[in-house]
């Protein structure tokens, strides 16, 4: 019999691995890009004010890996990404969906070290 047990992490922060992705200058403003990190599809965005965000690239409506190809925008001051397929709009800060509260996307912390964008992954 196989036994699957739980691996306990003491705190969430400790388990973040900062993974380098790409030079900062290669990410265009308002044009999302997808990256393949540890086998996962991550979307990166640079907004009008040069803030960086990362989310899963998978559109929760359809399961297609396309979120980065949507339109980066803003709603009530919050940065957003609109899915290119069924047009659900997500808050890039929290991942929550502004148009359908059954949906959400995972978001990840982003930072820049020595000109390289790094994404904090907890997997």
């Amino acid at each position, binding site marked *: *019999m*196989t*036994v*699957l*047990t*739980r*691996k*306990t*992490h003491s705190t*969430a922060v400790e*388990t973040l691995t900062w993974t380098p*992705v*790409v030079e900062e200058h290669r*990410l*265009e403003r*308002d*044009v999302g890009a*997808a*990256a*393949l*990190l540890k086998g*996962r*599809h991550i979307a*990166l965005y640079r*907004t*009008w004010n040069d803030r960086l965000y990362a989310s*899963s690239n*998978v*559109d*929760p*409506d*359809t*399961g*297609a*890996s*396309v979120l980065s*190809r*949507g*339109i*980066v*925008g*803003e*709603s*009530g*001051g919050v940065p*957003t990404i*609109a899915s*290119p*397929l069924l*047009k659900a*709009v997500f808050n890039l800060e929290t991942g*929550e969906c502004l*148009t*359908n*509260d*059954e*949906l*959400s996307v*995972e978001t990840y912390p982003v930072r820049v070290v020595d000109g390289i964008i790094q994404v904090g992954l907890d*997997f």
Partner: protein
Amino acid sequence: MPELINIRDLPTSVSERRVVVVGAGPAAHRFVTALRGRGDRSDVVVLGEESVAPYDRVNLAKHWDPDHDLSLTNVGMWNERTHLVTNAWVNSIDPERKSVHVNGETELAYDELVLATGSAATMPPLPGNDLAGVYVYRTVNDVDRMRANVEALSSARGPEKPPQAVVIGGGLLGLEAAGGLVKYGFETHLVHSRDWLMSSQLDEGGGRTLNRAIEQRGIELHLGQRPSAVLPAAADPSTVGGVAVGEDLIEADLVVWAIGITPRDELARDAGLETAPNGGVPIDTACRTATPGIWAIGEVASFDGTCVGLVAPANAMAEVVAAQLTGGDDEFTEIDDATKLKLHGLDVASFGDSLSRKSGTLDVVMSDPVEGVYQKLVLSDDARTLLGGVFVGDAEPYASLRALLGRQLPGAPKAYLSGGGDVPDAEMPDDLVACSCNNVTVHEIKQAVGQGCHDLASVKKCSKAGTQCGSCVGLVGKIMTKEMEGAGLEISKRLCEHFELSRPELFEAIRLSRLTSFTQVIEKIGTGRGCDICKPVVANILATAFHEHVLDGGRDGLQDTNDRALANMQKDGTYSVVPRIPGGEITPEKLAVIAQVAKEFNLYTKITGAQRIDLLGARLEQLPQIWQRLIDAGMESGQAYGKSLRAVKSCVGSAWCRYGVQDSVGMAVHLENRYRGLRSPHKLKIGVSGCARECAEARGKDVGVIATDKGWNVYVGGNGGFTPRHAELLVSDVDDRMLVKVIDRFFMYYIRSAERLQRTAPWVESLEGGMDHLREVILEDSLGICDELESAMGDLVADYRDEWAETLNDPVKLARFTPFINDPQATDETIVQVPERGQVRPATAGERVMISVPTIGIGA
């Protein structure tokens, strides 16, 4: 079935907490959605013994059509934290070790366990029930097996002697099953133990009215009787041949049991958990069982001593547990047992104390045996408070009334029944639950309207009301209309939160102040930073006003992905490629190139309705290579992705056709080449027919050109689609030169003054004076703008460049056709295609759940 990942490969937990759900039915699905909706980041593992992802059991009858997708989940809901394991039968629970055993081989630890095992259809231990051809009606598998048998029977019997079916049980499920079998051509009998159908919901008056309605549908009723045995067929003793009912023997090729449901509490009982005397696992108002860390929801949960076989309470319980697990204190306090029969063309509904069981109740009854209508309201002894109701034959009042359960009726009770006079137009209380499947109140529907949902579709989407069983949709519509009227809502033309202007106002402002970038536009006349609504509109206006490549000058961030990739994105993230084929005329050489490209890149190929060829399934990174090949062969972008001119459809015309009076193909090619690439508020289509026979169906287009012996008749404002409309005659018998002038003016006037996504048909309708006004502007130049419209169009035509040719010459633009910015060689492996009719198509959600990597299933 494709190979599945074994449960042993389930990744170790990444979170603090693992929630395990046993059962993958509607309750489990709702629970997971609600938990994620609350932002919870626990690991969730859903274990279901069926081989498919959670589906909408309520609408099981629709599965008689095997292509009808009942799936409740979108693939995206299963991810690295949310695992669905199909074919996973939980055989035991160990509450001490806090673990479950799956398929007798794998132990899975949990922190919180949610029992959502539902119920099973009841089948009594009667002789003959093990014969082939005896079914229950509970799962998609049951229906698949029945359908296979039904099809075999129908073809074996032929039309003279139809196959015969016996349904046992005259409740909701039995009636639905019988209805399905009648549709399949079965001679159907229904056996029910009481004297009238749906006896748990309907009183005698309602039940007898229903009996008659069902008999009129050709179903033979055997009431007040129970079967004593199911008998084998004489020809083949392993299959069913009949059912013994009292003295009678009813011949049967197929038998369906629908006498009730039994909660699936065997797992709980074996684990030593408390179970209720009538079956089910008892829960408190928090949906907790008596065992710490174990919750129960849906049909298996026993509340106040009963299990309910309805989806509304299951959803409500799922929401409660999701709330409880995320620090909320929501409670489940009341069972909403309102029911509505889903039989086409027959209204039957009941709610509350429909059988008038409480003492001292008063019944208000309306019975019309001629029309087959029976309606009853059950009221408190002071005739004011609504306690329940029964509706047969006409359930129109049901949706509004059930929401008033337990409240004082604002008007005379009689007024609420059909033909009883006008219902007082009282305000509906805000806390009324209008949609009980999803627990949506009147207030929430009004809120949706307040947030800008001004049509039924968006109110449903936003509030979730009416999206499950659908019985409250009428009510939702009423609440919406009333709220909009009350608010004096004049439909706002405001583009979005960033622009107060409407599209035509924006067009004028941009053109007159010569604003050439989105930043300039939003800073001068908008607020904030723009969104997916205003950005493409502005990009589209800039393209028409200043003729720039849509991807130039930072405009690509404004574009819908379709415009950005210069191709139409499909549901799986691949794209379609449509080369321009002007007028539908194509040389064999070009056709051969298209065929070669399709073959080489394994693209699904289809002829479109606009006489073009669609190549589907191209990956982002393949688009430049594909287009290079097409452009080398002399083709160009068909702009099938843009809000722009699509195609000009034509018939064969006078060159070949013996009836043709003008060269329709020549004109179509000319027009398509003139207006190609023209960006507009919505897509534009043209048709050209060579004679009045109208083989090009030109009057279904935005501009329809039909040959006469003197020239051309021009029709405008037609479209197919959702609200088809024929184009109307604008002008008759014009020559070639005038024809082009008229279309130039019409298109340019439309482009400047139409709203966002407004096609020409509603645009013409919206013009004050309609077609007359249009004739004045375009033919009599009443506004003095004809010259300007023509010259603006002339400039656009002169400046046309093929977007794809330009893109291929620009390394910066080309770089965007790389799927992953950090790994230029990698391709998207989540795109899964399966073969169909000799080509490929995207895998369905169900197929992908089983094939794709992030989700887990158990191998056989």
